[in-house]
């Protein structure tokens, strides 16, 4: 891991006009952090704390009210080819075959057809989808669809991947396999990633660092470096007894357990 900063948020604040009335809603306030080259950083926090907003800012889909995001030291002013994102929904186009879906981004960016097809076939082979390349998305299982979506994200060869709960819609066993595929791929390809997740174990087993966000208006309240081996193999890392210590610490920082306790005390 080098010290080159790939992705940086500098004092980012985002306000939205409230749907009801004229008030402004502050989604995130004064968020600053950076992700170094080849690093995988997870962002955890309660629902509605503005995690996805940060991701939209990083991908250039939304402009922050204050502050700025930087990719490779360049201020993000709109979508750019160095960043690709992946969501919980696979967003595969039903009228395209799996291979055509994988080349979707490359096609939009007008990469030469032969090159992008070759690249897609390589990625599909890597994700064990080669034999399904001419199938349509509805013929695939949820896990396979999500792998195809990951292949599509990688097919544009981005420097930075923004992942918004990419595996939260698949079953637990498939999720573990997908996590391993992701970790291995990122390691091999030397990619940098920001991962949003609700799954604390996922955050610990996949990341180099975990950032904890507060309730809305979201700000970063803690940063925990995960000092465990096997970042390229979350299944191996999962068996490390220290994982539960990290998870306990994250739970504590998120106030999981405390709130319920407070509420019960309040009622009593």
């Amino acid at each position: 891991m080098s010290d080159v900063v790939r992705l940086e948020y500098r004092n980012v604040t985002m306000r939205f006009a409230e749907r009801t009335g004229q008030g402004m809603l502050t989604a995130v306030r004064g968020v600053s952090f950076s992700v170094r080259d080849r690093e995988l950083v997870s962002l955890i926090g309660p629902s509605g704390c503005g995690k996805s907003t940060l991701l939209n800012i990083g991908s250039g889909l939304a402009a922050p009210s204050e502050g700025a995001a930087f990719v490779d030291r360049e201020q993000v002013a709109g979508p750019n080819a160095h960043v690709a994102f992946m969501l919980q929904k696979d967003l595969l186009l039903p009228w395209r075959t799996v291979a055509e879906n994988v080349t979707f981004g490359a096609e939009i960016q007008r990469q030469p057809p032969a090159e992008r097809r070759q690249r897609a076939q390589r990625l599909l082979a890597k994700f064990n989808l080669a034999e399904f390349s001419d199938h349509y998305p509805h013929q695939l299982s949820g896990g396979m669809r999500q792998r195809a979506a990951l292949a599509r994200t990688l097919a544009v060869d981005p420097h930075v991947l923004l992942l918004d709960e990419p595996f939260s819609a698949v079953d637990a066993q498939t999720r573990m396999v997908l996590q391993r595929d992701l970790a291995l791929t990122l390691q091999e390809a030397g990619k940098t990633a920001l991962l949003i997740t609700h799954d604390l174990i996922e955050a610990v087993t996949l990341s180099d660092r975990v950032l904890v966000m507060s309730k809305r208006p979201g700000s970063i309240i803690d940063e925990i470096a995960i000092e465990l081996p096997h970042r390229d193999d979350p299944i191996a890392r999962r068996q490390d007894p220290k994982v539960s210590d990290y998870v306990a610490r994250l739970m504590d920082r998120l106030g999981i357990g405390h709130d319920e306790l407070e509420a019960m005390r309040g009622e009593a």
Partner: protein
Amino acid sequence: MNGAARPSSVQKGTATSVILLVVFLAAWQWGPGLLGVPPYIVPSLSMVAREFVHDWQVSHLLLHTGVTAGEVLAGFVLGSLLGAFVGYVLGMSPTAELALSPYILALQIAPKVAFAPLFILWMGFTVYPKILVAILIVFFPVMVNVLTAIRGVDPDLINLARAFKATRAQIFWKIEFPASLPPMFAGLRIGSTLAVVGVVVGELVGGNVGLGYLLSFGEGQANTPMVFVSIVMLTVVGGIAYLAVIIVERRVLHYLPARSFGGNI
């Protein structure tokens, strides 16, 4: 999987359909006589068949059918193109939709066939008023379905394309347009049958050619079999139009799971 059960249920359905057809034709042939219904009310099947042959040989049935089919085709194609075009424009421009929606709604509520006499006043006893009524009547189901489809595209899909730096044109051709096709075909199916309604009303109101004309001519002559022949031919024209849409739909939407088309044609 009910792979084994399905063909048998299809076979059962087909067999029942054929039996129903035979029963219906038999009832048509002998029912009126048995019930004492006079032929000028309900002519028997064989009388209608004889009339068909006579109309074919003497009354230019093929010509009338051809003219009606041509008007249906022209009205359907132009109405669909116009409906799709307006649907896309309104779908992509919320301002235009807001500005135009009251007028579109008013025009949609107005019974389109009522415009037929007006169009004939404007354009005379030509094929154009008939085509115009068909255009007007086909326009709405296509436009509404396309508009709804464009509105219904998952914003995350658009964002995905935008994150890949897609241009507005790329978003349209690679996402919005293909996403609008299944609902558009649903609109086209409805439109294909409505086009026949529009044309036949136009022909009933004025003119001297087409199945609608033959229909009203038969009525004037108290020639009930000719009325029946006209109705049958109109049904054939509508059926062919509908089937044509289905065939194109299956080719274009080949990627959809088979069940999306349902058992009904």
